[in-house]
């Protein structure tokens, strides 16, 4: 490493520091068995289970294929929203965030590296879902790969600010997992992550219509199942963008680096 060249400026080069931080985030994530299991493996497990329950057709395509879109949606909310929120609360309350604030690592770089790291996990998870689907049920890979990648990145970009916002609103480490799952699981169920929702009553449909996950799943469905390009779904994009911006605003005003006073 070019330590001597950097010493002149007195600061580590931003690109090198960013890559270092991204590597560190990946190390921390995969080293934690709980995170790796509940965030990365759990959606895969659900897919295998649900794929063995459903048969026939969902959304006019084979069930195993229809379920993939729903579980990609669940994976996105689980990784970028729930997992991120829980990890951030734990790090804040244990004092890790506060400790990092006294290092030369810029706060914005920390957050961006964390979001990119989360996106990496989600992307690997999506890839794994397709591999499992293909191996067990012969489901196809996306035909329009560009649009599909765009949809994945948009989903992560919408849900991650909701994760940081939720972390900002949760006060203690003890309650983090309960609060987050209380939001995540009903949302995933109502939005069709675990199967079709046409038997839900109008009230539950109305709830789902407000939440962002349904729109992300619709977007993935359109791109993956029907081969539409991502920009043909402006309503989905608008709702996701709205939630993402809302999350950013809350994060901006409420995010804390320090644990609650003890």
């Amino acid at each position, binding site marked *: 490493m070019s330590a001597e060249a950097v*010493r002149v400026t007195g*600061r580590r080069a931003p690109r090198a520091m960013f890559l*270092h931080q991204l590597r560190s985030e990946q190390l921390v994530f995969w080293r934690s068995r709980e995170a790796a299991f509940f965030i990365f493996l759990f959606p895969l497990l659900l897919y295998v289970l649900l794929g063995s329950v459903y048969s026939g057709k969902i959304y006019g395509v084979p069930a195993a294929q229809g379920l993939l879109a729903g579980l990609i949606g669940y994976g996105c909310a689980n990784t970028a929203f729930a997992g991120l929120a829980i990890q951030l609360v734990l790090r804040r309350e244990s*004092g890790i965030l*506060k400790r990092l604030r006294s290092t*030369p690592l810029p706060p914005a770089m920390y957050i961006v590296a964390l979001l990119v790291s989360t996106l990496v996990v989600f992307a690997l998870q999506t890839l794994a879902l397709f591999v499992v689907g293909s191996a067990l049920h012969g489901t196809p890979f996306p035909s329009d790969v560009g649009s599909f990648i765009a949809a994945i990145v948009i989903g992560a970009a919408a849900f991650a600010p909701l994760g940081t916002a939720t972390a900002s609103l949760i006060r203690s480490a003890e309650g983090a997992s309960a609060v987050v799952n209380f939001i995540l699981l009903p949302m995933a169920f109502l939005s069709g992550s675990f199967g079709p929702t046409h038997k839900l009553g109008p009230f539950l449909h109305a709830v789902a219509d407000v939440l962002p996950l349904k729109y992300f799943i619709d977007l993935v469905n359109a791109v993956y199942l029907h081969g539409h390009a991502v920009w043909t779904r402006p309503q989905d994009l608008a709702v996701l963008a709205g939630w993402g911006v809302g999350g950013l605003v809350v994060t901006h005003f409420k995010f804390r680096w320090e644990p609650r006073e003890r």
Partner: protein
Amino acid sequence: MHAIEVSGLRKAYGNLEAVRGVDFTIEEGEVFGLLGPNGAGKTTTVEILEGYRKRDAGDVRVLGHDPERAGPDFRERIGVVLQQSEMWPNLTVRETHAVFAGYYAAPRDVDEVIALVGLQQKAAARVKSLSGGQKRRLDLGIALVGDPDLVFLDEPTTGFDPQARRAAWEMIRSLRSLGKTVLLTTHYLDEAEQLADRVAVMREGQIVRVGTPAELTTTDLQTEIRYRQNGEEVLLQTDEPTRVLAGLTAAAVARGEELEGLQVRRPSLEEVYLALTADEEAEVAE
């Protein structure tokens, strides 16, 4: 150049005035002890100097920076051990040091730092397997890995057993020999006496005394003279021990008596500290 200059520092949390007009200066290469009971305002003061808190009033310069506005250039040069913090439980000691080393332009060698804080045997161990004292040493290691000029140690040995404290003291002494400036907060007197070049005693948000440990013990309390007369203990406290003692002994010699159990002693730093912080200790005990 001064490493730290503080004047007229004030900070309130709501109605609670945590710091009420504090002034002090710390020289480069000095080990400075901030001493006082819990709630005296030590941590608030230190966290303002570290850049964590905004002050309400006063001037603060740390390594030439205003910590409230300072950025990464300032953070390149400081090392911080917080009163309470944990690290990622599933990383090893070496990985944790390497993560922090990556934030600095010119970090120290990771294994060298691990050896310095005495964790060589634990370098490959997960952080969650460390004892409380070992975790504190990890905190110190990651504070030193960036090769800082100024190290903040907020109660670095609280909860240590005596042996671990001795080991920590050795490490802090080694920081001095490396030429680092150290700001140490503690509520242990012996720690301040052992380590600090100068001590400031804080009480209720103010500094009530600053000086070397020796200065505090010679200037603050009166010298005590004790002896027994007719089986009763006599205690004299005086600012002029030489004159009082001369008079006392001359009178005894004239009477042909021996002053039984004669003792002349200066107060210990502990007694000075207890006298300085007496009221507050009573409040805390309530």
